[in-house]
């Protein structure tokens, strides 16, 4: 990618407002309120917020599925209302439903051809993305028989089949078990390593924290916080030391030592392992690519 190209943000929202009219009287429901954001190319960007905060509406505007009431939205410099703006975008909707009568392979092939892929390139590319999301063994089964996790993965495959520069994932781990969620996190990190821009919304804040470079938090359609993850979650004035268990006399000695230097020991706790880590250790990440997993 050229320097000029990378200077163009993947997504740029300026003063975005989206109102929905209800009834003939035109009572407005404001879903997005004066939202301005820049998603730099090559980053994993998390869009956070409670239910109804305007995340999905924002995504639909970026995808050109909704027109903004006011303000503007550009994708790689193009207005999102143009069909051309979607050429380099892959999208995985929240709780995706796909054509149940197609097999996984047929579904991805359908979207590949819709995106303009043709000829001899289609079959190997379809096989490649299906393999990449770990669904090779289930590729010829009807989508209607897929579990929730498999639907998310085939959704990811269709989003990536045309090798887009921007991938938008709306709640990609919604309803997926921790193994499936971890596998999806891994795939997202791989996308980042490939230089793709990823815009992700998720309720799993731990997951967001682990994979995102930047996050924005929305509430009632408004941007209330935005910044790099490390800046937002790091507390520079505090430190935690993890040592082997101290005896009461040793602990007293430590307090005295700190007191001499004008410091206080604020808390003494036993460190706890995170339950999801224990789950993943026991179940094994290797199974994350099991086609039956994640449902």
């Amino acid at each position, binding site marked *: 990618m050229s320097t000029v190209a990378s200077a163009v943000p993947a997504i740029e929202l300026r003063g975005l407002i989206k109102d929905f009219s209800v009834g003939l009287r035109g009572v407005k429901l404001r879903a997005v309120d004066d939202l301005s954001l820049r998603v730099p190319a090559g980053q994993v960007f998390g869009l956070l917020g409670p239910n109804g905060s305007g995340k999905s509406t924002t995504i639909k505007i970026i995808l*050109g599925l909704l027109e903004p009431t006011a303000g503007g939205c550009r994708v790689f410099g193009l207005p999102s209302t143009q069909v*051309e703006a*979607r050429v380099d975008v892959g*999208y995985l909707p929240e709780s995706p*439903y*796909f054509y149940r*009568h197609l097999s996984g392979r047929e579904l991805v092939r359908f*979207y590949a051809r819709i*995106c303009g892929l043709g000829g001899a390139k289609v079959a190997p590319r379809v096989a490649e993305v299906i393999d990449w999301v770990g669904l090779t063994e289930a590729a010829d089964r009807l989508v209607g028989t897929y579990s929730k996790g498999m639907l998310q993965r085939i959704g990811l495959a269709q989003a990536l089949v045309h090798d887009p520069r921007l991938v938008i994932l709306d709640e990609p781990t919604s309803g997926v078990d921790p193994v499936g969620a971890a596998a999806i996190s891994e795939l997202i990190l791989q996308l980042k390593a490939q230089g793709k821009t990823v815009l992700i919304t998720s309720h799993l804040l731990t997951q967001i924290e682990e994979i995102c470079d930047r996050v924005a938090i929305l509430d009632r359609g408004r941007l209330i916080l935005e910044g790099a993850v490390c800046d937002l979650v790091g507390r520079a004035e505090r430190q935690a030391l993890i040592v082997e268990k101290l005896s009461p006399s040793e602990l007293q000695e430590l307090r005295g030592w700190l007191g001499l230097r004008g410091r206080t020991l604020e808390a003494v706790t036993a460190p706890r392992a995170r339950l999801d880590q224990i789950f993943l250790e026991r179940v094994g990440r290797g199974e994350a690519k099991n086609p039956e997993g994640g449902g």
Partner: protein
Amino acid sequence: MSRVHFSLIRVLLIARNTLLEASRQKLFSFLLLLALGLVGGAQSFREFNFGASELKFLADLGYGAMAFFGAALTITATAQLFFSEIENRTALTLLAKPVWRAEFMLGKYLGVVAVTAVFCALMTVLLVAVLWSRESALLRDIPDSFTQGRTLRIADLLLAGYLQWLKLTVLAAFTLLVASFSRTQLFTVVTGFFVLVICHLQYLARDAYAQGGSTFAQVAAGFVGLLFPNFQLFNFADDVGAGIPVAWDRVARVSVYALGHVAAACGLAVFSFRKREI
């Protein structure tokens, strides 16, 4: 970035997918089996000893079944296949790709048209087979009624099937137009059936218009006559049953007439769907 042009390939891909989806639905199979069963079961006309006229009864029943079940299939399939995309959010995924909304709508339309084509083709083939075998039997049993030889003209039977299909293509376009602005599938289906009845009866409104009445009624009836196509023009199947040959030039004119209405209804459906919030 290069421009994304309107693509017939994308339209056909969406149409093929729509056809595939419809063919896997129970409603399609149910209506098809019902209609085929009705035509197949028409053998019971033998009991009435109509003689050579039994063929007319068979043809009428066959084309009647095609018109009735075809209309039901067209309206429900158009509404169902359109709203399943919206409600199942598959339209979301599809329209998030570089796809024009016009391509989506025309793809859906052509898919439904293909469904009706399969339905009409199967029905016509079965009907021709039933009529042919029955005429052969009658030729043996009552040769005096067939002094001129066979009375069935296969070309006319096929043309009548084509005209039934042509009518359904117009009905599908109007149902799609309703679906493009309707919020619910039920509203679309009910309105679709109203459109069907109005299209069959608009000539009566025109008669009333011609015969007088209040100025408002005249203008309203005239306007209705303009809005809706006249489906009576397509009812050549009745002529086939009555033994009247189908005029090819008239078929060509009706085809152009249907194409005009289909183009307008589809164009307006695309216009209406253009800004629809998915």
